[in-house]
């Protein structure tokens, strides 16, 4: 069975997506416009299509059971979240690039905190997927509440910031988008963690599927 091959491709994809997000956020932090672009959305999409096709073909040809069935169905689902994470790496880079054109350069400590927490969630969810570590996956899922709260705090903070520092509307819009993208990345990291648990055990969210 070709599951091992598909598994390796999934791990390559996960690693590439993780590095893309690290690249995007390092770009946000240093705003170095001369940085060589690492993000390659077409590559992520190609991984997604290839893995989906391989999973479907393996299910068709091999009629798998037990661990093999959980792996193939889990991989088929998790690539969707990995692909969305890849999209958001591009979104973060685009927002950063758009912000770089403004004279203002502010830092929002809460956003910096949220980004770092979010990156930890991404790293841990992918580690949990690779190692089948259920405890680590559960940590990721539990952390999503913190991200949601921080997101709302920042959302409330932005109008005040605009007023206090007399910031441009467009500037605030990009920060609002950035804030939302980070929150979405954390959501997708949680989803990856949920699929990691499913692949390991057959549990998805609150019940046993297979």
């Amino acid at each position: 069975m070709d599951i091992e091959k598909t598994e390796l491709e999934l791990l390559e994809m996960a690693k590439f997506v993780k590095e893309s997000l690290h690249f995007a956020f390092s770009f946000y932090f240093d705003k170095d416009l001369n940085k060589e672009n690492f993000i390659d959305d077409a590559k992520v999409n190609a991984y997604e299509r290839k893995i989906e096709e391989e999973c479907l073909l393996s299910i068709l040809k091999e009629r798998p059971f037990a661990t093999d069935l959980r792996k193939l169905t889990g991989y088929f689902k998790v690539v969707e979240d990995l692909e969305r994470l890849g999209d958001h790496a591009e979104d973060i880079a685009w927002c950063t690039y758009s912000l770089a054109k403004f004279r203002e350069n502010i830092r929002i400590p809460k956003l910096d905190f949220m980004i770092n927490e979010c990156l930890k969630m991404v790293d841990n969810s992918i580690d949990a997927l690779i190692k089948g570590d259920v405890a680590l996956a559960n940590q990721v899922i539990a952390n999503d509440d913190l991200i949601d709260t921080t997101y709302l705090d920042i959302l409330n903070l932005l109008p005040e910031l605009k007023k206090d520092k007399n910031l441009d509307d467009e500037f605030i819009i990009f920060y609002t988008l950035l804030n939302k993208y980070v929150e979405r990345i954390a959501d997708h990291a949680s989803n990856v963690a949920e699929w990691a648990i499913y692949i390991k055990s057959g549990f998805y969210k609150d019940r046993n599927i297979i």
Partner: protein
Amino acid sequence: MLNLFKNKKKENNTSLNNEMISNDKLPYSKEYTNEQVMFEVKDFNFYYDKKSKLALKDINLEIFKNKVTAFIGPSGCGKSTLLRCFDRMNELIQDSSYDGQILYKNKEIHSFNTIELRSKVGMVFQQPNPFPMSIYNNVAYGPKCQGLKDKKELDKIVLNSLKDVGLYDEVSDRLNISGSSLSGGQQQRLCIARCIAMSPDVILMDEPTSALDPIATQKIEELIKKLKEKYTIIIVTHNMQQAARISDYTAFFMLGELVEFNKTEEFFARPKNKKSEDYITGKFS
């Protein structure tokens, strides 16, 4: 996911703790404890060649009424041997012997004479084996042997049996032609009709579809699912997908031992034994 606008309780997806899913501590319910038992195998060993070859070792197993139980396992694991023990066919093999017990409806199978037992426990074999006689006489053979002479009653049994196996519409205009002239799938359904003409409780099936094409196989599988409403079925199969599709319970054998017995859905999704997992995922054969 963040829910800004709806005052809906967030979906609980974190309730799972690590201990709950650690492999063998899973809280799987054993829903089958309420099933009615048809056969009970107790501390059963079976030997070939004057006890020089142990074919079945310490088997303990229950077969439930109106359920399909699949026996699976690699060749030589003892699944067909056990199947043939239920109707005492193995006792025809020279130098074979056994110890332990098999209870049929709470009575030891040796307390029945073989004719009585085999009228209640029918067998369908791998190769369709219609008797060299007409379709009608194939089905009527068993009841006739039991002394039934009433033509109307025999007609009724033949008609119902052929209808039950879905063969009647295909052969109703040629009941007098030889059973051997039918296609392989039809012959196998004729053999099942011959079996159920005796009104058995149990039908034993030893790889009943392995000699058939996919369409005939599908018909037999559909038939098995229908027949379990009236009969208890035990099927030996090498086809794991077939076991997963049609059986309610699965027993996995290896080297004469019963490795795992479980509800089919659980067996193929979350086998409890590492050997079962390795077998169904093709790690060895």
